[in-house]
């Protein structure tokens, strides 16, 4: 039954397509239609495949063989005017290639579904507390366990935690980033391994974190990323073998596919993790903590459940937990976000802005090409009019023009595809690391179809429409000398196009200006410490080797001492969480001043950081009052803390906090610490971030294993890097350095995406300006030629050359003011949407707007200079004669 419908549809469509062959007589068309229908019917009796093949052959026969004559004609006219046609196609091809390249990014990052089964059922789960203005906090282990056990909205919920570990092979150690994942991880993402298998339920039980000093139960296992597997030699036999990861042999169970990037593309391995196991013992009498919010939690919703529905159910559960554990959960609820949005979140706005800017530029290009096509159309009006007058059918000419456009579309598509294939690779290698799903950006069927459709579209507006307009000339008017009528109407159309070009150029200029000022501000902003000459050595010793606090303290004492012997190093120190560094523990805990215990659970939260003596001096972070840590603040000595200005003001207002005591709810429960110093605020997470309350604890009083060691150097820090690495390795040759960098680089990385956006938009702005200038120039030059006689007449009647030139310049200024106004209004609206991208500059920043307009006016004036000069140099006598 269904097949009959297909057959009928084929036959009907074929009959419709036949109208393309209008040139043939009716009888012949009838014969073609009947025979086609018969062929389809007889093929139909031989099955789907034959029918499909016949249908394809018929359409090809009709469109390609049948239209050959028109194509031949088009080719002939292409050869006749190669420079113009090919030039237009190349220009459009370039524009389409650039836009398609950006589309490849937009597609991979924003549009394409995630590479997991039914990805719309995947959500990220956060905790949020509206009354404390803390939203999107990583859930706490205790709450996650209750969610897993008690929710009725999810098929599976999994928590993960990033981990840095050292992979040891014969040629030394390599620091890697991976993830600890709880039971259900592979059920949430539902991705089959590429090799081997993933974890079975019992393999999660009792698995402690890699960096934990707790003993593990059972054999440690791991699943590798495709990338790591390839780095290890791409040997399928590796599955079942063991790798030495973080000082322990772990059996490789499987390898995930290359596009499995959870939580991000940095993750090189996944290890099972049992939350309960990590929070056992006397330190956690109540089991896994609920006020320790740092996990990354994802879930797969039950089929048929909307995200709102799932959120409602989870909120009910959250309020149950709130009632059961008011001391930790009061005010805390649950927020759900689609996983795809979460992943794209960081670069959605940038991508869309860059893409729209490119689209803007492409339209500019179309406008210019359209302008060219109109000019060409005008010159062809006479040719077409003559052919019409000689009896050529209107449809005949239209078909030829369509064939010409089709040909230039094919050339454009060809150029666009070739260029895109090359530029996608280049763009991926240049793109900042922060772009999610970057590894999925590639030339694929969607990108190719986008390029083809876009090419057809731009050829349509850039050349086909203007050409077709020209194909309807009034014969009598067009044949009259000068073709005055159509020339003046097309002049108006071109003027409008130039106005649009100017508007788009202003838009791009303002965008580039705002981003340039943002970037300058980001580089200039005071981060709260001295960024120059600061070497950062990240060290991640094996937990299995340094099991006790004493061992850890001793290791770092030796490392710092060893570094002090390097001549170019003035001072060294270490800290858990360094500004901008992704390595090292960083978490928040509740605190309150000793004499002001808050009502209920309304304690403020502060970031807890462990630092060695001399840390603030080395970092160049000013100690405003009191002192920094010294060697006397040792294990067992009275507990002291250093706080930042923000916390001091929040806790004690204007009073002096030095010598006061602060209660910190950390580890063994609330415990008092004496404030011995106050340091300046710092922008921890990059120039855009604001200061948050901080509490520093002497590293010796609370040792941590993974630290950022910093060294203030007297010369270029990178020149000292190798000596510093050797100094660290001297202490323990088998404990590799995770990475060495400089603070300047870390800060540079933090604004890398800003720099990339600025670079792109600036390129677009320059291209837009050039395009607009070319448009203004071409239009004015054309008008001067058109009005040659009029100008000559005016000069003959006494107008001075200067006056003639001025009139041309005024013409350009009219265009600029109309286009400029439209552009400024557009930019003012657009900048508001892009507000979050800006820093230290208002979206309506007058300096930027005035500069953009001034630049535009200068360029327009420059573009009108040559045509004006040409007008002024017209020889009236000769012009009147011609």
């Amino acid at each position: 039954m269904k097949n009959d419908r297909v057959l009928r549809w084929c036959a009907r469509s074929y009959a419709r397509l036949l109208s393309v062959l209008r040139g043939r007589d009716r009888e012949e068309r009838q014969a073609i239609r009947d025979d086609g229908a018969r062929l389809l019917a007889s093929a139909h009796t031989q099955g789907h495949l034959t029918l499909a093949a016949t249908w394809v052959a018929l359409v090809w026969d009709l469109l390609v063989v049948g239209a050959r004559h028109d194509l031949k004609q088009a080719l002939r006219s292409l050869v006749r005017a190669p420079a113009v046609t090919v030039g237009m196609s190349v220009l459009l091809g370039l524009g389409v290639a650039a836009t398609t390249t950006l589309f490849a990014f937009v597609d991979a990052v924003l549009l394409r579904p995630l590479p997991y089964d039914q990805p719309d059922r995947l959500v990220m789960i956060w905790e949020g507390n509206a009354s404390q203005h803390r939203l999107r906090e990583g859930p706490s282990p205790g709450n996650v366990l209750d969610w897993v056990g008690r929710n009725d909205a999810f098929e599976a919920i999994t928590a993960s935690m990033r981990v840095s570990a050292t992979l040891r092979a014969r040629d030394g150690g390599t620091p890697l980033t991976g993830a600890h994942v709880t039971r259900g991880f592979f059920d949430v993402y539902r991705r089959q391994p590429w090799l081997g298998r993933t974890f079975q339920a019992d393999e999660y039980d009792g698995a402690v974190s890699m960096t934990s000093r707790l003993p593990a139960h059972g054999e440690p296992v791991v699943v590798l990323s495709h990338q790591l597997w390839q780095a290890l030699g791409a040997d399928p036999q590796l599955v079942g073998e063991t790798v030495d990861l973080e000082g322990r042999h772990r059996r490789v169970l499987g390898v995930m596919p290359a596009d499995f990037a959870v939580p991000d593309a940095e993750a090189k391995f996944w290890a099972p993790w049992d939350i309960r196991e990590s929070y056992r013992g006397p330190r956690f009498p109540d089991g896994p903590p609920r006020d320790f919010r740092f996990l990354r939690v994802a879930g797969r919703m039950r089929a048929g459940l909307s995200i709102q529905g799932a959120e409602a159910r989870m909120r009910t559960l959250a309020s149950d937990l709130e009632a059961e554990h008011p001391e930790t959960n009061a005010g805390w609820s649950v927020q759900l976000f689609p996983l795809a949005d979460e992943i794209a979140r960081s670069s959605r706005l940038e991508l869309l802005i860059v893409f729209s800017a490119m689209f803007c530029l492409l339209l500019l290009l179309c406008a210019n090409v359209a302008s060219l096509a109109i000019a060409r159309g005008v010159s062809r009006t006479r040719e077409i009019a003559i052919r019409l007058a000689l009896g050529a059918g209107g449809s005949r000419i239209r078909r030829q023009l369509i064939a010409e456009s089709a040909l230039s579309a094919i050339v454009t598509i060809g150029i666009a595809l070739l260029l895109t294939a090359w530029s996608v690779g280049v763009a991926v290698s240049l793109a900042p690391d922060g772009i999610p799903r970057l590894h999925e950006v590639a030339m694929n069927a969607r990108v190719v179809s986008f390029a083809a459709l876009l090419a057809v579209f731009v050829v349509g507006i850039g050349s086909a429409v203007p050409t077709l307009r020209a194909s309807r000339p009034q014969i009598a008017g067009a044949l009259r000398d000068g073709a005055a009528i159509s020339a003046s109407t097309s002049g108006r159309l071109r003027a409008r196009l130039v106005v649009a070009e100017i508007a788009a150029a202003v838009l791009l200029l303002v965008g580039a200006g705002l981003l340039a000022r943002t970037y300058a501000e980001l580089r200039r902003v005071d981060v709260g410490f001295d960024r120059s000459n600061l070497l950062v050595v990240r060290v991640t010793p094996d937990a299995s080797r340094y099991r006790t606090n004493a061992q850890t303290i001793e290791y770092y004492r030796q490392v710092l001492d060893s570094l002090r012997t390097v001549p170019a190093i003035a001072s060294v120190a270490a800290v858990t969480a360094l500004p901008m560094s992704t390595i090292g523990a960083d978490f928040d805990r509740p605190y309150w001043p000793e004499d002001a215990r808050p009502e209920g659970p309304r304690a403020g939260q502060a970031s807890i950081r462990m630092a060695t003596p001399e840390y603030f001096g080395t970092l160049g972070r000013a100690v405003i009052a009191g002192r920094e840590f010294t060697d006397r603040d040792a294990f067992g000595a009275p507990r002291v803390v250093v706080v930042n200005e923000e916390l001091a003001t929040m806790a004690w207002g204007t009073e002096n906090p030095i010598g006061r005591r602060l209660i910190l709810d950390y580890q063994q429960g609330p415990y008092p610490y004496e404030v011995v110093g106050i340091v300046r605020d710092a922008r921890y997470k990059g120039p855009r971030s604001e200061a948050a309350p901080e509490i520093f604890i002497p590293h010796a009083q609370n040792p941590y294993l993974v630290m950022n060691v910093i060294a203030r150097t007297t010369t270029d820090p990178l020149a000292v890097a190798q000596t510093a690495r050797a100094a660290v390795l001297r202490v323990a040759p088998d404990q590799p350095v995770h990475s060495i960098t400089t603070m300047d680089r870390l800060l540079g990385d933090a604004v890398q995406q800003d720099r990339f956006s600025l670079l792109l938009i600036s390129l677009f702005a320059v291209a837009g300006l050039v395009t607009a200038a070319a448009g203004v120039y071409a239009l004015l030059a054309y008008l001067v030629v058109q009005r040659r006689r009029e100008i000559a007449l005016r000069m003959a009647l006494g107008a001075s050359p200067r006056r003639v030139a001025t009139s041309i310049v005024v013409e350009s200024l009219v265009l600029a003011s109309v286009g400029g106004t439209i552009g400024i209004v557009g930019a003012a609206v657009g900048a508001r949407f892009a507000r979050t991208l800006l820093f230290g500059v208002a979206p309506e920043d007058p300096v930027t707007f005035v500069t953009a307009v001034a630049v535009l006016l200068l360029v327009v004036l420059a573009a009108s200079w040559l045509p004006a000069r040409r007008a002024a140099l017209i020889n009236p006598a000769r012009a009147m004669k011609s």
Partner: protein
Amino acid sequence: MPDRPRPVDPLLPLKPKALHILLAVADGPRHGYGIMQEVAERTDGQVRLWPTALYGLLRELERLDLIAESAKRPAAEEDDERRRYFALTPRGKRVLDAEVRRLTAIVSHARASRALRKPHRA
């Protein structure tokens, strides 16, 4: 003026598809669809003519006076009244003969070639 036969050489060699059409109508008038079927049958489906290409070629062959619309039609029960039947013209017959002679010469030349006779040279 007597109708002197025009030379046929400039038309040779024929396009393969044109040759197939002439062969298909050599035995008697056929309509378009019949030609398609005949050609497909003779060549075991190796050569397929599709309607647009076919009628384009028919028109060209008509213009060259190699075929003509035929008034002679098959027996009433087989006739499809709406269709145009095409038949070989005398000139078409001469061109076909000449083409076949040309091809035969090539084939016999090929047969005489040692290379083809002994394909398995050591």
